[in-house]
């Protein structure tokens, strides 16, 4: 995908998909985005070696023609969820209007292109020859040249129409904030050095919001932070995660606590039986039919002070043992599940002191064989402003240790 034209087409598809799935329930949103991403990748891969312009136009056309269905699908989903409001209907109508306008542009331009040879036929012989060449090229299946001429008009049309008509509507859906400065939440108010209450203190109360201007009071303020969902696995995939495994088994997404996600890789002697996903339809779990090490990890940027929340559960068929290694092929018992915060440059399976920044959760010898889903929390504010790696590692060499996680999120910590 080195061509800028192809990049533009793919960006249009991604941008549009993000737009029409915006503020949808995470499951529907992530599923649709992942599906479109896969389709776009496949079509690019399939078109490798084809004419770039033709392939890019093909992607754009598939996008444009599908817009009414995208909007219809969005409306269906909203109706199902009971969130179809008058404002969303108005927004959909604006988008549909924009799409129609773009289609009209396309038709007008295509029509203009079709009439050109007939007009030119009356002109000088050289022009007629050129037109004949173009027609012959089109009949041979090479339609790239005329399409290339239309591209700037189309691109301008799409950008101007969709952007112009939608941005004000999208902005209108954000919570209203007076003024133009950054928004702050008032956490507490201290008196001025004189001890006298200033007039503004009566107007701004803790818990309220205001916009930074020349406010003549001393305030302890914290920039507003929202909770960040790292993953609840409702996409039905482990997209955005990396997996490192040794031996048997792996990490999977599952929907039913009594149905192994991949039966061929599940130990039939100790049937898969874990709690159902504690939140939503899906959660992540390890399953195996032999000893192994399974590591699920991803990097997390901490732009503020956050508390990590993870719903953790497990079912263990052996006895826990926690040597200082994640290798399963050792003589002693290694039967453990641990969640660590690791440096981004550390080897993914390292337990060295310099590599592991903090341990969030770990099993220990003597722990019960089964843990029902329960929240584990950990204060990450020490790593504010840094990128860290969240690593979930499970090792077993004394029988299946099936571990699961769900609803991994960062909750802001108030100062």
């Amino acid at each position, binding site marked *: 995908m080195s061509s800028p034209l192809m990049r533009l087409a793919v960006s249009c*598809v991604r941008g549009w*998909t993000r737009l029409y799935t915006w503020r949808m329930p995470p499951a529907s949103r992530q*599923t*649709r985005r*992942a*599906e*479109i*991403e*896969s*389709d776009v*990748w*496949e*079509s690019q*891969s*399939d078109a490798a070696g084809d004419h770039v312009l033709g392939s890019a136009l*093909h992607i754009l*056309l*598939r*996008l*444009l*023609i*599908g*817009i*009414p*269905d*995208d*909007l*219809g*699908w969005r409306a269906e989903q909203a109706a199902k969820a009971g969130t179809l409001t008058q404002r969303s209907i108005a927004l959909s109508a604006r988008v549909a209007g924009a799409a129609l306008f773009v289609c009209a542009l396309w038709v007008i331009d295509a029509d203009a292109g079709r009439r050109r040879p007939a007009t030119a036929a009356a002109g000088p012989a050289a022009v007629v020859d050129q037109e004949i060449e173009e027609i012959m090229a089109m009949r041979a299946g090479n339609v790239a040249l005329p399409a290339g001429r239309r591209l700037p008009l189309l691109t301008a049309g799409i950008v101007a129409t969709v952007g112009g008509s939608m941005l004000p509507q999208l902005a209108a859906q954000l919570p209203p904030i007076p003024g133009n400065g950054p928004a702050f939440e008032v956490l507490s108010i201290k008196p001025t050095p004189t001890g006298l209450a200033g007039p503004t203190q009566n107007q701004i109360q803790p818990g309220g919001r205001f916009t930074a201007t020349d406010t003549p009071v001393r305030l302890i303020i914290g920039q507003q932070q929202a909770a960040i969902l790292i993953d609840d696995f409702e*996409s*039905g*995939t*482990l*997209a955005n*995660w*990396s*997996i490192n*495994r040794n031996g048997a088994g*792996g*990490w*999977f*997404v599952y929907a039913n606590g009594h149905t192994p996600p*991949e039966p061929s890789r599940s130990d039939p002697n100790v049937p898969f039986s874990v709690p159902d996903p504690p939140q939503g339809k899906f959660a992540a779990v390890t399953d195996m039919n032999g000893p192994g090490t399974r590591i699920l990890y991803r990097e997390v940027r901490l732009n503020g002070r956050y508390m990590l929340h993870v719903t953790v559960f497990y079912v263990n068929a052996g006895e826990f043992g926690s040597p200082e290694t994640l290798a399963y092929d050792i003589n002693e018992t290694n039967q453990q599940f641990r969640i660590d915060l690791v440096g981004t440059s550390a080897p993914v399976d390292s337990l060295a002191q310099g590599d592991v920044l903090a341990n969030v959760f770990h099993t220990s010898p003597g722990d019960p064989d089964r843990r029902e889903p329960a929240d584990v929390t950990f204060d990450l504010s020490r790593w504010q402003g840094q990128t860290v790696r969240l690593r979930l590692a499970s090792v077993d060499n004394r029988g299946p240790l099936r571990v699961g996680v769900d609803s991994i999120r960062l909750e802001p910590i108030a100062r």
Partner: protein
Amino acid sequence: VRRKPGQLVPLETAICVCAANLRRNGTLEFHGYEIAKRLGNENNRRLLTAYGTLYRALGRLEAMGLLQSRWEDPQIPARENRPGRRMYTLTAAGKTAAQEARKAAREPMPKRAARRPVPA
């Protein structure tokens, strides 16, 4: 195309027939782009079904119980360095729908009554 209750729209029928053809050729599962490509080939069209149209139709077919879907094992796309695919399978109800569609296509169209010559 306006949907009549209990009936499939032409695209949905075409997807079922195409999936049944794939099944006969030994491909039990297919992903969105694959079915779009097949539909394009069968109808001799270069332009594939639009993203929105295709995935909305696949979603409807799944809701009707004619298709089933699952996301492939994440290790496969990780190994092949590509996004994960949502794999669809034609269900027994989907096979029946495809058979009925084939049967309907084979049946001759009802003959139109011959036009009466207008007297001069």
